[in-house]
């Protein structure tokens, strides 16, 4: 027993020492395990993988994204073990001292600065728009990524949203990093260039900035916006305030202001949802993802009922493909299905309104972790890059798919309507 304990400690030490982030290596590395077998070990060595140790019938491997891809291609089943080595998380937490109050995650002002920095660095490809103000008068920013960004070209438009719910910090990072990725790889990656040339990707990473700021300064698990309900309670659940089947029943949302799923006094009562609605209706989007956390689930309409939507085959097919693409990255499984069946009933949420009014593929993606025991609404800072990377192929797929069957409307090229409305951030 004692020997086992010593061996376990030695393994933890070995692993945590091995995965200390080196200054040169920015890519997220995972610890994975495969069943121990002599033939498999030889195969792994032939693949030039970084084998850490063999212990209790498993071979432990330190693997970067390329290694994980190679394992998947070689049809070698592996299990993620990173979370079983706490020193890894603690070590990375220290690196967060470079950041603001929430470490490597964005505050409202950090996001504003980073979005404007992208606009400045990629002037022909990125433009930041102010879609309106939150209750506390913070800007609701959208980042448009497209070639000839000042113009509304006759090309497909895709919308990515984050942070409807204040405590879901990771949902800010994933769509923002996607915009950043497109811009950083435009010049070097023909696939990205082609995608950006043929589409308009609109990213609104922080739909609920007031709530997010409250999570930073007062209470980490705050969910709603910061509406003073005048009864001692605060907040409307923005993701129950959209106008499709709003307030249909009290199961999918609540009429009680103190509830976490309070739908507000009427549909679109909140400036945040009004801004998204007005913006959406001015555009011609062909696909949409609203990011949330947690549970590793891809959901499509309907949320207000367990019944299937008209285009379920299409919606399910896309969800299945996105799930498979995510799994190919690192083996992490995102389940998928109708929102109302997969998690719980919701009425007045984003995807129902988007699908109900425009019939385009609309998804809620609940990002990791999978459950409360794995972190709930917390993800370590070290996980941000990995979660983005695993979602990247799915995001690229959705945008590419939207470009592939796009039928030009014959509208030609014109100055973007939003620029005409003087919503441009100069």
């Amino acid at each position: 027993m004692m020997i086992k304990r010593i061996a376990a400690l030695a393994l933890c030490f070995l692993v945590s020492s091995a995965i200390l982030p080196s200054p040169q290596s920015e890519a997220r590395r995972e610890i994975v395990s495969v069943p121990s077998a002599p033939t498999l070990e030889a195969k792994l060595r032939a693949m030039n993988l970084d084998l850490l140790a063999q212990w209790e019938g498993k071979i432990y491997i330190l693997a970067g994204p390329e290694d994980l891809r190679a394992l998947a291609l070689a049809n070698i089943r592996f299990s993620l073990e990173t979370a079983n080595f706490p020193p890894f998380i603690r070590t990375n937490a220290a690196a967060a001292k470079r950041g603001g109050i929430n470490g490597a995650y964005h505050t409202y002002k950090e996001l504003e600065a980073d979005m404007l920095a992208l606009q400045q660095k990629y002037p022909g490809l990125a433009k930041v728009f102010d879609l309106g103000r939150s209750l506390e008068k913070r800007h609701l920013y959208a980042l448009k990524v497209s070639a000839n960004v000042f113009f509304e070209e006759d090309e497909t438009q895709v919308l990515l949203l984050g942070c409807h719910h204040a405590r879901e910090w990771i949902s800010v990072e994933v769509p923002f990093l996607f915009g950043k990725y497109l811009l950083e790889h435009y010049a070097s990656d023909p696939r990205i260039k082609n995608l950006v040339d043929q589409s308009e990707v609109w990213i609104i990473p922080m739909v609920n900035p007031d709530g997010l700021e409250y999570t930073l300064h007062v209470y980490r698990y705050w969910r709603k916006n910061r509406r003073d309900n005048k009864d001692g309670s605060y907040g409307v659940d923005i993701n129950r305030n959209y106008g499709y089947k709003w307030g249909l029943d009290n199961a999918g949302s609540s009429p009680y202001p103190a509830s976490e799923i309070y739908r507000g006094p009427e549909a679109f009562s909140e400036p945040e949802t009004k801004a998204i609605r007005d913006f959406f209706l001015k555009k011609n989007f062909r696909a949409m993802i609203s990011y949330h956390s947690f549970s590793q689930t891809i959901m499509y309409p309907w949320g207000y009922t367990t019944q299937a939507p008209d285009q379920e085959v299409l919606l399910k097919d896309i969800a299945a493909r996105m799930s498979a693409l995510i799994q190919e990255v690192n083996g992490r499984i995102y389940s998928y299905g109708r929102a109302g069946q997969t998690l719980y009933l919701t009425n007045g949420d984003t995807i129902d309104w988007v699908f109900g009014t425009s019939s385009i593929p609309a998804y809620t993606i609940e990002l990791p972790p999978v459950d409360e025991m794995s972190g709930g609404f917390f993800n370590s800072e070290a996980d941000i890059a990995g979660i983005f990377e695993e979602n990247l192929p799915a995001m690229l797929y959705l945008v590419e798919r939207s470009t592939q069957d796009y039928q030009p409307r014959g509208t030609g090229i014109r100055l973007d309507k939003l620029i005409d409305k003087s919503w441009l951030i100069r």
Partner: protein
Amino acid sequence: MAGRFGILIVLLFGLSCVLFPPPAWPQLAIGQYEEEAPLGTWNIFETATAASLGRGGTCFSLASDCSAALTNPALLLLLPKWTAMVNGSLTYASLFKYSLVNTGVLGSDGNLALTLYSLDFSGLSLHLGKWAFAITIGARELYNRPPAQSEYSYGGITYYSIDLTQKGMLRTLNLSAARRINDWLSAGLGINLSAGDLKREMIEEWPTSGISITDRKTGDIREFYLNGGLLANLADRVRIAAVFRTPSSRKLKNSSLLEYSAGAGKTEIAIEASAEDNVKQPLILGLGASARILPHLDVALDISYYGWSHYAFNYFGEAQQRNFRDVMKAATGMEWLSSFKLFGQRIDIPIRLGLAYDPQPMKEPRSSYLAFTFGGGLSWQNLHLDFGVLIGRESGSGNDLATRKLLVSLAFEL
């Protein structure tokens, strides 16, 4: 014609309010008790001692003890050769909105109260001819908040609990010197070094599933500023004074640790941050006057200006919205000195009364305290024992906040 012009102006003003909305301002106007707010009032020139508190807090032109060094060091020239004193305080304040209390997470039916005791001032002064010197140390600001707890238990099992605590204090070391310039004018200057800390901790737990969230925020505070004053004797019975405290940049070393623990430690997530921030503290100016209107009766009036519109609070590198305005605080008081003899020894008994109007700097909600004060004491030979009481009531926020203070000081002079 003038009436039409007036209407036009009003309409234009209304239109400008619509077209140019005010800057970001929370739905939640937290009011007086922002996280960094001192307990009781924002307008703290310096630590008060019992004698001045009993007179409504008037201290610009009347000196009772060496705490004068903190507000108008020129008053040190009115003290005997040596003085030494200690001061203890019992502070009570009621709060309604602060941190996660009554801001959406934890609710209370009424105000929450906090009572604190501290030995909050001690000092020495020396008067040598035209010069006077003092060294004092005092607790200038307290940051404590009423602890807040909530728990859900059923059948003897606790399913959920949340616990909030906040504590902190800022102490100031003051070194002062004063000089008599001529028969009617004196001047004094003090240098002040402040140090303190502020700690806040929130622990949220779901014991049955082994999940806990801990949010710890700590800040070390450092500050340097000058204070000074002039004192003019206009006549035998009348004195006027002008005082100042320089604006300053309060330095903060903040750190934050947010931890999530689940599954008996299997999942441990820590998000740490640290920052060097600053708080731009305002200029304070004051004018005071006192007069001996009867052989044993002094009256005093202090008016002080706090330039809160220049206040700026940076927290983890980001400017926080405070929306403050400049305020004028007013205090008036009187001191009646009666004496009697006990076993052949003369005993002086001062009796003090005062009023203070103390508007808080927030633009919204407008809020001010009106305080009634009284105090008294016993002086026998070189010993002085004083007490002062302040009873203040707030209006404007709708929460009917209260502040009370009891100070007791013991002074010795030669």
